[in-house]
């Protein structure tokens, strides 16, 4: 059996931002009962013993956890590479220095646009200035800096400005990630999905910037899978390389898998190793034996693994179907209809976005 390289630790779903593209689950209130510091430390030790090398601290906003420095410190002692995925709200200079001393290896800051009014509007809260200050602080403390901008219909036309911003902040990496439609993003899809001409302009800008900034800024451009011919090789295959632990201790092959009607697995009930190796949840879509047609006989079945199980479930109600993004899927019409609507000349782009709320924690 393969061993996981990465653990995505979703420390909390609490978040001061209200981005309408958030991939967190819709039932945020069900995750208020969060793992304690000691429980997270046990999870990290078990993850290391299972072969995990990289720890991604995410959420929600991981800095909402008062014990994030302690968790980083434990991870560092275990020899894990630690990556903080943050909105930067809560990254004061004192907190940053504590995290640096605790051994945090890398910081990824999300920004919603290249100027204040637009960024704050998308985030649903004043945050742009604090993000810029925090990005400078990350560079001053000599951390590698990744900026992450989720691209939607609302901000994709600003891509030249976003690229300039990343250059001016001396980021090492810029992730331009077209929205993946899970959680709140799926609910808001009609307003978020960009048009084909918007995407074509963005790709031209990315190609030019890659050439201009080679060796200085690595630009990662995540294509919008609704516009691609074949599905993404989601998670490099179900239960192959990564696992996720949700704020309440649920263990998942990926963060979106909580929505699937599958048996649960929890750190409250079992060890990570047993869950990874034996649980019905992790076994369900491992390998290729579960595949229906057209995947079963497809020569790409070991390349994209039938695409994303969560997307198949969300769009068809059956997680065991071919990802409808694939042009060979019998359900592909669902995706082409969404794409057609996004390219209607009458699409105003002004549809109402449902902001994701800020769940209060019980602890």
């Amino acid at each position, binding site marked *: 059996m393969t061993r996981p*390289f*990465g653990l995505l630790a979703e420390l909390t779903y609490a978040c001061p931002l209200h981005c309408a593209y958030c991939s967190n689950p819709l039932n945020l209130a069900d995750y208020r009962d969060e793992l304690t510091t000691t429980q997270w430390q046990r999870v990290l030790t078990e993850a290391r013993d299972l072969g995990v*090398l*990289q720890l991604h601290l995410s959420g929600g906003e991981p800095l909402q956890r008062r014990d994030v420095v302690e968790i980083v410190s434990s991870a560092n002692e275990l020899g894990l*590479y630690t*990556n903080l995925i943050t909105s930067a709200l809560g990254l004061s200079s004192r907190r940053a220095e504590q995290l640096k001393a605790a051994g945090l*290896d*890398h910081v*990824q800051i999300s920004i919603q646009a290249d100027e204040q009014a637009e960024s704050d509007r998308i985030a649903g809260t004043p945050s742009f200035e604090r993000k810029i200050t925090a990005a400078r602080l990350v560079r001053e403390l000599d951390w*590698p800096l*990744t900026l992450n901008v989720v691209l939607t219909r609302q901000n994709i036309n600003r891509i030249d400005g976003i690229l300039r911003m990343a250059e001016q902040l001396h980021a*090492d*990496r810029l*992730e331009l990630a077209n929205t993946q439609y899970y959680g709140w993003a799926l609910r808001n899809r009609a307003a978020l999905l960009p048009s084909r001409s918007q995407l074509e302009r963005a790709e031209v800008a990315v190609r030019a910037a890659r050439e201009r900034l*080679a*060796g200085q*800024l*690595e630009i*990662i451009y995540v294509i919008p899978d609704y516009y691609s011919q074949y599905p993404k090789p989601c998670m490099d295959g179900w239960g192959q390389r990564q696992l996720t632990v949700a704020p309440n201790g649920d263990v998942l092959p990926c963060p979106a898998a909580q929505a699937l009607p599958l048996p649960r697995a929890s750190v409250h009930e079992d060890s990570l190793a047993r869950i990874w190796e034996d649980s019905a949840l992790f076994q369900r879509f491992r390998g290729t034996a579960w595949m229906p047609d057209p995947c079963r006989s497809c020569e790409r079945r070991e390349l994209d693994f039938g695409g994303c199980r969560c997307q198949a479930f969300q769009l068809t109600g059956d997680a065991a179907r071919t990802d409808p993004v694939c042009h060979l899927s019998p359900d592909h019409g669902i995706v082409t209809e969404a794409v057609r609507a996004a390219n209607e000349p009458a699409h105003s782009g002004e549809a109402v976005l449902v902001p994701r709320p800020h769940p209060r924690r019980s602890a």
Partner: protein
Amino acid sequence: MLLGPESVSVLNPTGAAILDLCDGQRTVAEIVGELREEYDHVVGDEVRNFLARLVAKRCVELGDD
């Protein structure tokens, strides 16, 4: 094994030998020279290409001098 923010690269012994010599002091030419003392058939361009790919990924930096 080379760990980046969102990547894990499993290096082959050749890649690992090159990276071991990247210490912030040696020049690329010196690295090629040292590899030649240790191994047969060291192609300078291949070492330079390997390092250029890692520079593009911001895994190593070329110094100013």
